[in-house]
């Protein structure tokens, strides 16, 4: 449902696809920090849905998708 997608305020990371560019950390600073090797750590914080959209579109490895569940 497109409505669900528009409202997503969190991202999920495909760890196989992620190449550690860190674009997500720059666009979603509240939610994502980078580990010492430059790979994302997702925190349970919400970001504005438009920022989530942008991060999903701009991830160079196409490794992000909108999510509405809290990371474990």
């Amino acid at each position, binding site marked *: 449902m497109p409505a669900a997608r528009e409202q997503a305020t969190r991202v999920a990371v495909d760890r196989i696809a992620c190449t*550690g560019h*860190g674009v997500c*950390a720059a666009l979603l600073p509240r939610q994502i920090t980078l580990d010492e090797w430059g790979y994302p750590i997702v925190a349970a914080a919400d970001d504005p849905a438009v920022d989530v959209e942008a991060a999903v579109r701009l991830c*160079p490895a196409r490794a992000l998708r909108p999510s509405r569940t809290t990371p474990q």
Partner: protein
Amino acid sequence: MNELLWYFSRATGVVSMVLLTTTLVLGMTLSGRRSARPATSTVVAGLHRWLGLGMVAFLVGHVTTAVVETYVSIGPLSALVPFTAGYQPLWVGLGTIAFDILLAVAVTSALRHRISERAWRGVHLASYLLWPTALVHGFMLGTSDQPLLRLVTVACGVAGMLAVSWRIQATHHDREHRRSVTAQGWS
């Protein structure tokens, strides 16, 4: 009017060459190396995307004016089918090939979220074919009474070749990481 079109075509051609080279170099830095600061990667990724797409506008202007002006015979067919121009068919044809590849790269990038990663990458890597093709086209047809414009093409060639040789030896941090993880095997 014709003369104006001719100038417009040359100007947009030169701008496209500069944008193409810039886009190519930015793409290589994106793939070849992970920046220490996430903000840098983000700016590079954004510039690569928007300059790449912006170039399409300049190229459409370049091709359209080259077809419309009647000083030399280049028909509408030559915009998409190589080696069909009455004027310098070989060098114009190279420009046509470059334009076709560019359209393919731009369309697959716009649809990136809907096509497979392999398809996108396969087409995207054709950029390495597109760039020298466009360069030779620009150099051979560039008007030799304008040394400055020639110089721009040559400068683009040098910058691009330096970047390509850097890219060949660049090892992406993530690739290294994957290699070392694979080498460890399952335990």
